[in-house]
């Protein structure tokens, strides 16, 4: 008697293997090329270039500030979207997700047309507080936060929806107030999702290009972040562009390694 062949995930149709391999090569080969083309012998000197360090410092600083802005505004937004039923919630969720699919340069134009020094909000900022946002590191932070916040909101909202609400109910029956429940039960429950969302948000902010160059301009040490520096270096010294790209690649790999438990389960 023949036993029916077990349906195993190890037996994919042969025809899928070739496009699968091509897909892998397509994603990996350009990065391999980047690593191979790197001017390894002069790498330390190029990395020690004050201009590179300035761009790196600015990028790390602005991405971290943007993540802070996203945490302060995005976590409450995610909580409301996940836990508070209100009419039009689907629309609000769609609006929050919009920057995720919007070309970043459009975000930059929109920010400029609202926060520019002669515009709707920007003119009031200038006349009331003497603040002019375009061409400042603060503009870089805003551009990055605009583009990166949906990543955080979606991750945290997903974690909140997946969390077991019975713990919160139990805390409530034991007399905990809303703030206490949020602080002592809910947030610890979603901490892994929150951390992953924050890291993703930070990585997106670090890589931001289109909204930044449109809204914040480009000036070394002030608004010229790593991606802008890569773009500019490609026109003057391509080897420098490769070095800067390697740094960003290294940061990305480090982020992936840090999140591997979440995204790449070992099984």
């Amino acid at each position, binding site marked *: 008697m023949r036993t029916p062949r077990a349906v195993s995930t190890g037996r994919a149709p042969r025809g899928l293997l070739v496009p699968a391999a091509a897909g892998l090569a397509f994603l990996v080969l350009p990065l391999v090329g980047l690593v191979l083309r790197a001017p390894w012998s002069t790498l330390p000197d190029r990395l020690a270039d004050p201009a590179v360090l300035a761009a790196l410092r600015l990028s790390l600083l602005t991405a971290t500030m943007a993540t802070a802005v996203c945490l302060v505004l995005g976590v409450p937004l995610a909580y409301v979207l996940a836990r508070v039923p209100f009419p039009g919630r689907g629309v609000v969720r769609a609006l929050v997700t919009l920057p995720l699919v919007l070309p970043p340069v459009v975000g930059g134009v929109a920010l*400029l047309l609202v926060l*520019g*020094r*002669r515009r709707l909000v920007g003119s009031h900022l200038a006349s009331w507080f003497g603040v002019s946002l*375009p*061409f400042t590191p603060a503009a870089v932070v805003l551009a990055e936060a605009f583009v990166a916040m949906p990543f955080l909101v979606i991750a945290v909202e997903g974690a909140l929806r997946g969390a077991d609400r019975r713990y919160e109910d139990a805390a409530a029956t034991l007399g905990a107030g809303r703030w206490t429940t949020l602080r002592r039960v809910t947030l610890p429950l979603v901490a892994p999702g929150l951390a992953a969302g924050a890291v993703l948000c930070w990585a997106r902010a670090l890589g931001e290009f289109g909204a930044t*160059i449109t809204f914040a*301009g*480009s*000036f*070394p040490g002030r*608004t*010229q972040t790593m991606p802008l520096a890569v*773009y*500019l270096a*490609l*026109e*003057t010294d*391509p080897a420098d562009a490769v070095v800067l790209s390697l740094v960003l690649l290294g940061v990305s790999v480090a982020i992936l390694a840090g999140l591997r438990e979440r995204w790449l389960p070992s099984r």
Partner: protein
Amino acid sequence: MTRRAVTHRRVSRALAVAVPLLVLAACGGGAPAAPPRTVTVLAAASLTEVFTTLGRDFEADRPGTTVVLSFAGSSSLAQQVNAGAPADVFAAASAATMRTVADAGNAAGEPVVFARNQLVIAVPRGNPRGVRGLADLAGPGVKVALCAPPVPCGAAARTALAAAGVALTPVTLEQDVKATLAKLRLGEVDAALVYRTDAAAAGDQVTPVEFPESAAAVNEYPIVALAGAPNPGGAAAFVAYVRSPAAVAVLTAAGFQPP
């Protein structure tokens, strides 16, 4: 408006490059098509208006021919050419930038200068801050946009500022002259160093302020047919057309100086 048209042109150019590549890859070569009737021209951003006109005139002269234009900072275009972008003609805003293409062996023949241009200080209509020269730009609270140093207009700005002995910190260094001018047109800066022709093309939105030191930084515009041109005949014809009396009249009307 202009910028959108430029972007659109860039997008269609990208598609025009990508789609045949995919088809070629799929067929593994295939039979040669009919002789190409498209001339692909990469031109400095400051040539946007005038080359759009010249392209249209060229097409009118030769029915069935299409001129595809791509405008960007000269240094960015030079880098595209040297990376093998399939184009027929390259027109740069500086001899130095053109040299990077010729040195890489990507020019078919010797580049020829077809126009010259120089910088003005572009200020908002009516010159509200009363800017009269470069020294006025170094004052406190004056926001200035310049082109990035690798771009010809950025190099010219550096030369002019050095000639005037003026040290100023701009708020931004943009990728091409149109992007620099855009920051002024949007009202985000008080002044921008751009070519005389760009200020003129912006119409009455922008007032140009001439300054003597711009004579120290006159840009020459060389043009050349590219070695890897898919349409060498069209490339040579377009280069010849840009130097014809009809084209010189268009260039002069736009504010360019003869070579």
